[in-house]
């Protein structure tokens, strides 16, 4: 499959989509990309001229949740269009082909679109120093497949916390030596769309942005698009007024929980988590974890699996406990007692063996 020479505008008109339909498509795309509605004319102009890129999707050590998240969007027209507007040339779960035929198709797509295709990766992969046997596809190690695919890619999108930061496979004790895409790819632009799984509209929003503008959106220090990851959950949470007033749920079924109060005391990691869940929500805007009464896990942040219990508040240390205090205190008491006892003995012996001294002797000394 090659990149077609028709623009997106031409393809949409071929599909019989009217001008109004196209404007609606642009409005929905703008919303999906978290761009202000005032940008709709610019998006319309860009999409009119956009060409259909080839996309290769590599799945490594992943649970397929990211693909599920993307395709579980009740096939809304816009996401459908996005996916049909890109040429998804290789995807384990979604493609019909398997085995040698599939690998051959991938290689052909990579060759024909060399330097221009978009590479999407989900799942982490065993690093170059680990045993490659932990995860292979068609007998090829993940690492080798990634590095070969990256060579001809225009950009790499790491979808999901596993690909972006290592995710679950990288969690302690990291038996496969898993690393993230960003750890390995240094010479091509990498964009991380983290989340476990990512909000589906964020994935398509990033693709739409790339389609529209031909480049990746503005990124934060973790290479995540600022449009979706620039605000913390805490700053966009509808329960924030309760936090500010000091009204917290203390258990999962107390009056506070039923009244929808803040979930900080139940372990919510919202303050330190950056994602779009609070505004975009899940299942086409139905709800999201906090609205359903569960504290945020912080799933779009690096190493969230090892960041302490999901149900311990953010202010609680991850390793220390009351036992640490007691043990150290006991050792200290032993040391203190020993030192003080020795000192007492010294004082006693000196008191027993002290010699009286006259004023003249003192004046001579001083």
């Amino acid at each position: 499959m090659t990149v077609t020479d028709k623009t997106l505008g031409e393809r949409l008109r071929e599909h019989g989509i009217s001008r109004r339909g196209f404007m609606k498509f642009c409005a929905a795309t703008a919303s999906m990309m978290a761009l202000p509605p005032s940008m709709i004319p610019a998006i319309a102009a860009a999409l009119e001229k956009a060409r259909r890129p080839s996309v290769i999707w590599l799945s490594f050590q992943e649970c397929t949740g990211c693909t599920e998240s993307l395709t579980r969007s009740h096939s809304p027209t816009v996401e459908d269009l996005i996916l049909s507007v890109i040429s998804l040339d290789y995807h384990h779960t979604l493609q019909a082909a398997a085995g040698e035929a599939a690998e051959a198709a991938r290689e052909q797509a990579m060759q024909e679109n060399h330097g221009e295709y978009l590479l999407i990766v989900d799942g982490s992969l065993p690093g170059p120093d680990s045993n490659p046997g932990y995860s292979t596809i068609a007998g090829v190690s993940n690492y080798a497949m990634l590095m070969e695919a990256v060579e001809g890619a225009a950009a790499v999108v790491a979808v999901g916390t596993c690909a972006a930061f290592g995710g679950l496979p990288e969690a302690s004790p990291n038996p496969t030596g898993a690393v993230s895409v960003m750890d390995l790819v240094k010479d091509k632009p990498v964009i991380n769309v983290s989340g476990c799984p990512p909000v589906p509209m964020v994935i398509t929003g990033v693709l739409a942005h790339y389609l529209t503008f031909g480049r990746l959106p503005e990124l934060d220090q973790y290479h995540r698009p600022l449009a979706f990851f620039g605000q913390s959950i805490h700053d966009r949470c509808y329960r924030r007024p309760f936090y500010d007033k000091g009204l917290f749920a203390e258990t999962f079924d107390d009056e506070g929980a039923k009244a929808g109060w803040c979930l900080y005391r139940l372990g919510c990691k919202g303050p330190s988590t950056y994602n779009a869940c609070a505004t975009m929500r899940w299942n086409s805007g139905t709800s999201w974890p906090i609205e359903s009464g569960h504290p945020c896990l912080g799933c779009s942040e690096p190493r969230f699996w090892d960041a302490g219990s999901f149900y311990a508040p953010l202010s609680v240390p991850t390793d220390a406990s009351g036992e640490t205090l007691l043990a150290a205190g006991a050792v200290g008491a032993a040391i203190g007692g020993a030192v003080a006892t020795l000192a007492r003995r010294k004082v006693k012996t000196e008191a027993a063996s002290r010699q009286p001294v006259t004023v003249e002797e003192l004046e001579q000394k001083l």
Partner: protein
Amino acid sequence: MSGLHSIPVRVESDPGPHTEHGNAVPILHEIRHALGRLIESDAETRIDLNAIPFGPGDEERLVGLLGMGEVSASVEALGPTRVQETAVPGVWLVDYRNAEGERLALHLEVAAIPGILRTQREDLDTAIAELDARLQSGQAAPRLES
């Protein structure tokens, strides 16, 4: 699976309107500013309600506060879009939905008329040709599917 029927089901009544999250009020202020701009300089504003942290009930409260106006329209293009004028002149709710009726985006448009209702300039360019084609064939020419 007969055991399932013997599990008692208890419906918890929802908390009702007393859980106020107060996130609808700031939007009303934004609408007020947008109306000011529209009146002064004909500048149109579109507010994407997807980006607002609404809690349950906030959207209903906002829509209820704005009320219903005289005009409601539906546009069939790439699925239905419902346009509703609110009781506040110049403030429109534009609900974009897909073919399955699921919401794609909800916009508040502060304008004399929402963008999607206007006839697009590009369509006007082909209007005369369309009319001529219909006159000539004397029967309905194949319509552009929407």
